[in-house]
Every structure is written in structure tokens, then in C-alpha cells.
């Protein structure tokens, strides 16, 4: 009896197989879900998944299957996942990497194997300039963009003596470099701290002694929380305003900083209060689905999915012809939550970039309020270094 049941199930399985007429297009997402930075990957994944769910398992009318794996913030592990996606699953489209060092290790390898990679976060200068590739697209930003906008804003606002602070590693220097590209005033001090440093008392005392009229810092994750809390405890937030890229001010980190972040102005290519139909729809749907305000990372995941959807629709779900797929992606013919979006020659965003202010809203939540667009149709400086074949 039991055996009969099993045989019956096997036959049923065989019959069910061909019923699935179209094989769904596989999209391989490599992202960071563990470690303390895991919430970044969570946001990107949830934004991407939301776009798929809204179409009932499709993107651009084409059935898709999203494969997700956690790189644990480790380049080696991300490389293994990429290999597996390509060799075992036959994935032709990848996305999701959070960190630039992971992207630099993985992206050049996969794009050479005839795989399209659409970055939903990391935008290192290498992949925008000398290392650009026809199979690599970035739908988020070039890393320097969010610092450039602050540099421009701080200069326009009349600050003339700014103190700079970043961790002592390549990305720290890149971010300060982005700020300095558009900032024209004097530099009161330029300090590189230990990566992962927790106590900033010594730096804050030295900062106060230097008497700057503003502070610009890039300290991602917990380092930024530590710095902002200690800066406020030293009473400096009352006298010397703080600026930075959006990374230390997303809606999830703000819950750990609260009042110490209020009034900080930060640069971002997106905010949940941008007034366009696509964004209003996205923010409402995200809140319903996940019960929280989306961060910029979620918006990038969502835009990545919708961009791919627009391209899949144009090629009718056929990912075997990469030339056609690339051309379709390059058109960027999708309703972005940023209002408008196009690709530059090195396939990075051309978009408006905003200055936001951290506020406490009527419900007592800590969030960002968009002040103004400082750049319109902003591209990146690495276009000229990019020689695409």
C-alpha cells in the first residue's frame, strides 16, 4: 500500500513537471545577511522581493526566481556563491552585493563569464572607471556621489573651516576625497581613526580644540552611532553642525542614535518623502508588507528589480541574447522611486541628489526630511576613465 502510494506520487510528479511551461528566469542575489551589517542586505532583499511579489512572482510580466545567499561580508564566500550560481544554477543575472570590497572581488570575475551584474548598493570607483564593463550596471550610486553632494551643500551654506573624520582604510579616504572635490573652504583637520573604533573621546577633544565651523564624517555602522552619541554628550552638537553621507542616517540606525542625530544633514539619492507616484506607492507597499519605513537600501533593491523587470519585458524573458538584454537595461525605461533616472556612459546613475535632515516626526519616530536637491542630473567623475569595448 505504501509502495503504491509512493509510485503514485512519482507519477504525479512526472506529470506535474511539464505543466510548468516557462522556466522562470533565475536572478542570483549575493548579499550580506549575517554579521551586524546584515540589516543592509535584509533591506535590499526585501525591496527586491517586494517588486516581485507585487507582480505575483514576475518581473515585467516574466516569471522570475530569486535565489538569495548570504556572503557574511566576506569576499571569498561571495566568490563561491557566484561560482555556484553560474555553474550549478545557470544564473545569467546577479545583484545584491552590499560592500565595495566584496564587489571588487566578485564583479570583475562574473561579468567576464557572460553574466549581467546590476549593483543595488556598492559603487566603488574602480568599477566605474578603469574596471568598467559592458555587463556591469549600477542602479544605486557611485560611492563618491553622496559625499560630493554634502561638499557642495556645505560650501553653498557658507561653511569655511570643516573638520573631516573617517576610518583609516581605502573607502574612508575615498569618501573624504568625494567631499573635498566639491568643498572649497579650508580644512580644520583631517583625522583617520582605527577601523571599528568605539571610543572617540580623544578625537572629539582634539576636534573641539581645532574650533571648526562644521564637521563632516564618514563612519559607517556602529562607528557612526558611537561618534554621534559621544559628540552629543560632549555638547558639541549644540555649537558645531555635523554633516555626512546617508549611510549613518538610515531609518534603522537612527533608532539606535535617536536625539543625538537630530538636525544632522546628510546626502542621499533617495528619501521616503520624495513626492512622485512611484515612490508613494513603494513606501506605502513596503510599510504594509514589512511594517517599517524603507531605507535607501530597500529603495535601491526595489529599483534594481524594476529596472530588470523593464528589461525582461523588452526581451520577452529571453536572457540568452545578452546584447539585447544589455541594450534593454541601458534604456532604464522604468518608473523609478527617485522620480527620474538614466545611465551614464559608464553605466552608473545620472540622477538628482538631495540633502536631508534628521528629524523626529509627529509619531515620535526618527526619520529624514528632504530639504532640497543640490545636484540635478548628477553623474560621476570616473566616466572619462572608463573604456568600454
Amino acid at each position, binding site marked *: 500500500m505504501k509502495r503504491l502510494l509512493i509510485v503514485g506520487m512519482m507519477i504525479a510528479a512526472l506529470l506535474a513537471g511539464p505543466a510548468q511551461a516557462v522556466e522562470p528566469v533565475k536572478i542570483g542575489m549575493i548579499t550580506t545577511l549575517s554579521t*551586524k551589517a546584515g540589516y543592509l542586505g535584509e533591506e535590499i532583499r526585501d525591496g527586491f522581493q517586494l517588486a516581485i511579489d507585487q507582480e505575483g512572482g514576475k518581473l515585467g510580466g516574466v516569471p522570475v526566481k530569486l535565489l538569495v545567499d548570504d556572503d557574511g561580508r566576506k569576499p571569498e564566500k561571495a566568490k563561491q556563491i557566484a561560482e555556484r550560481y553560474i555553474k550549478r544554477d545557470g544564473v545569467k543575472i546577479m545583484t545584491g552585493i552590499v560592500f565595495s570590497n566584496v564587489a571588487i572581488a566578485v564583479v570583475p570575475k562574473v561579468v567576464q563569464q557572460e553574466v549581467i551584474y546590476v549593483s543595488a548598493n556598492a559603487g566603488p570607483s574602480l568599477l566605474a572607471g578603469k574596471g568598467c564593463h559592458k555587463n556591469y550596471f549600477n542602479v544605486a550610486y557611485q560611492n563618491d556621489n553622496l559625499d560630493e553632494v554634502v561638499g557642495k551643500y556645505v560650501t553653498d551654506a557658507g561653511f569655511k573651516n570643516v573638520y573631516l573624520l573617517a576610518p583609516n582604510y581605502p573607502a574612508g579616504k575615498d569618501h573624504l576625497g568625494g567631499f573635498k572635490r566639491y568643498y572649497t573652504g579650508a580644512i580644520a583637520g583631517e583625522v583617520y581613526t582605527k577601523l571599528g573604533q568605539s571610543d572617540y573621546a*580623544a578625537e572629539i577633544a582634539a576636534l573641539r*580644540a581645532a574650533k571648526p565651523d562644521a564637521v563632516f564624517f564618514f563612519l559607517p555602522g556602529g562607528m557612526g552611532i558611537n561618534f554621534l552619541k559621544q559628540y552629543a554628550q560632549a555638547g558639541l552638537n549644540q555649537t558645531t553642525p555635523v554633516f555626512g553621507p546617508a549611510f549613518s542616517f538610515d531609518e534603522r540606525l537612527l533608532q539606535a542614535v535617536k536625539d543625538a542625530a537630530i538636525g544632522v544633514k546628510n546626502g542621499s539619492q533617495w528619501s521616503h518623502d520624495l513626492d512622485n507616484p512611484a515612490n508613494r506607492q513603494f513606501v506605502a507597499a513596503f510599510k504594509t508588507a514589512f511594517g517599517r519605513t524603507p531605507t535607501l537600501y530597500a529603495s535601491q533593491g526595489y529599483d534594481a528589480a524594476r529596472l530588470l523587470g523593464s528589461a525582461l519585458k523588452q526581451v520577452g524573458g529571453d536572457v540568452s541574447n545578452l546584447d539585447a538584454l544589455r541594450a534593454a537595461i541601458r534604456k532604464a525605461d522604468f518608473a523609478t522611486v527617485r522620480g527620474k533616472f538614466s545611465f551614464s556612459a559608464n553605466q552608473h546613475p545620472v540622477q538628482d541628489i538631495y540633502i536631508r535632515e534628521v528629524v523626529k516626526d509627529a509619531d515620535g519616530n526618527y526619520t529624514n526630511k528632504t530639504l532640497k536637491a543640490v545636484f540635478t542630473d548628477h553623474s560621476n567623475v570616473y566616466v572619462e576613465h572608463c573604456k568600454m569595448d
Partner: protein
Amino acid sequence: MIRRYRMSSIQFNWYNPMLLFIEQLLNGLQLGITLFLLSAGLTLVFGIMQVINLAHGSFYMIGAYVGATVTARTGSFILGILAALPAAALAGMIVEVLVLRRLYQKDHLDQVLATFGMIMFFNELTRIIWGRQPLFMDVPPWLTGSIELIPGVPYPSYRIAVIAAGILVGGFLYLLFTRTRIGMQIRAGASNREMAGALGVNIRLLYTLVFGLGTLLAGLAGVMAGPILAVEAGMGESILILTFVVIVIGGIGSIRGALAGALLVGLVDTLGRAFLPIVLRLFLSAAYADGIAASMASMSVYILMATILVCRPRGLLPAHG
């Protein structure tokens, strides 16, 4: 003379380099005290039980998480501390009974592997219980603002409270070890565990208590760091490395050594970060000096450790003889 300042009214003459130096000394002292609370427990466990406990930072994290949660629920920082201490001690004693008891007879490599595994276990456990988002914890209202202990040097009250708490704990440990029966038993167990056992001391219970005391101190350091730092999974690892430097410098197993080592490391680290750029700028161009100073400041405590180990291989104040 103690005056309370409102945050916004802090105005002083920072051109006086002497006052800046005093403030940086206080910063170094405060870092040193936090390191002492962590290293006192670690050095006890290492010296008495011969166990390398890499998971010590996890109890620091548990203290901070429990403290932050209870403070948020009740609104009282004191209740937060009162909850964090037994939580860290209890977690420590459970770990000792369930895991470490099986490792006393094994060599150090097994202990390192097992306790390293526990770091991952506790990090993931906090993510499961509290989520991936860092927790919020603020300075209690009665400790906000600054106090001017030395005229011209207003210093955040909370950091002064941390220093005071550290000094109290140091005094308590001194009395515990020199004046009480249990302190005597702990010292006896450290000198010769078989002999102490033969004389009727319950070594198993003693080890559990020592381990619990060590993790309690780590939990205290964690909950006191909560208002200053991000309360997040993995917060213990960044400070754990410095803690190991402290116990190596101070002499493994020695509480007095841990105190000396912690203060030394705290001061060298802070003063290095604060004044190396200024000193190097006397000889080099500003941009070049800042770059080198950043690297040298990161190395300073390790250079200190190497120097001390060359001069005194067993540390500054070794435990036995």
C-alpha cells in the same frame, strides 16, 4: 569646586594646551577603567582556571543588551545595571558548567576553538532575540551635562561616573581578595589547585563562582559602555583584543597587573591618538603627518606590549613570585 553646566553653555578657552592635555588624560583614564573591568575577570579566569576564554567579550555584550532592554522598559538606568549584572553572571556560570568544565583537562587549542565558537553562538543569539538593529541606550538624565572638577576642564558627568564606578570596583576586589575567606580560597586555588582541593575547598564550585564574578565584571563594563557606544552584536570583539593586551602587559592572573596594564593601555592609546598628529606635524607636512600618525596610533599599544615583554617577559606585576 563643582559646577553643573548646561550642554549649550559650554564655553572655555581651548587654546590652553595644558587643559586639553588634562582632558585627554581623563579620557585615557576612563578607557583604562573600562578595560580594567573586562581584564580583571579575564585574568582571574586565565590565571586561576588556566582557561583561555575568547568569549569574554560576549558577556560584555550580554550586559549591554540586558541593560539597554531593561532601561528602555523601566526608564531607570539603575534598574538596567541591576538586571545586567546577574544576567551576565548567570550566563557565565551556565557556560562554565555546561561547556568549560569539559575543557579544563584539554589543551589550550581546544579551549580557543570552543570559546571562539561561543562568540558566534552568542552573536547569533542576540540577533535572534533582539534583531539585527543596534539597540538604543542613553545617558540617564541625572548624569547628562558636564562637571568642572578642575577649573577650565568641564568633563562629561557620565564619564566621571564610569571612572568612579571603576575605582569602587577596584577597591571591592582588593577587599575581597585580601580580607575574605572566599578571596583566600581563590588565591589558594590559583597557587595550587590540588592542594587547595585536598584541604577541603570545593574547587568545582569555586571555579564556577570565579567565572561568574569575571563575567559579572564584564557585564558591568558592558552596561556602563551602553550609553556611550552602539549596543550591537559583536561589540565585545573590538574591545577583547585590547583586553588581552592588558592582561599580557599586566602579568597573567594578576589583578594588580590588570589594573596597571589597563591604565597604561588606556593612556597610551588615547594620548597616542590625541597627540601623535600634533607631534609629527612638527617634523612633517600636515597631510603626511596625519597619515603616519593614524597608523602609529593604532600600533602604539602593541609597541608598548612588545617593549614590556622584552624588559619583563612575565608582565609588569606577575601573579606568583
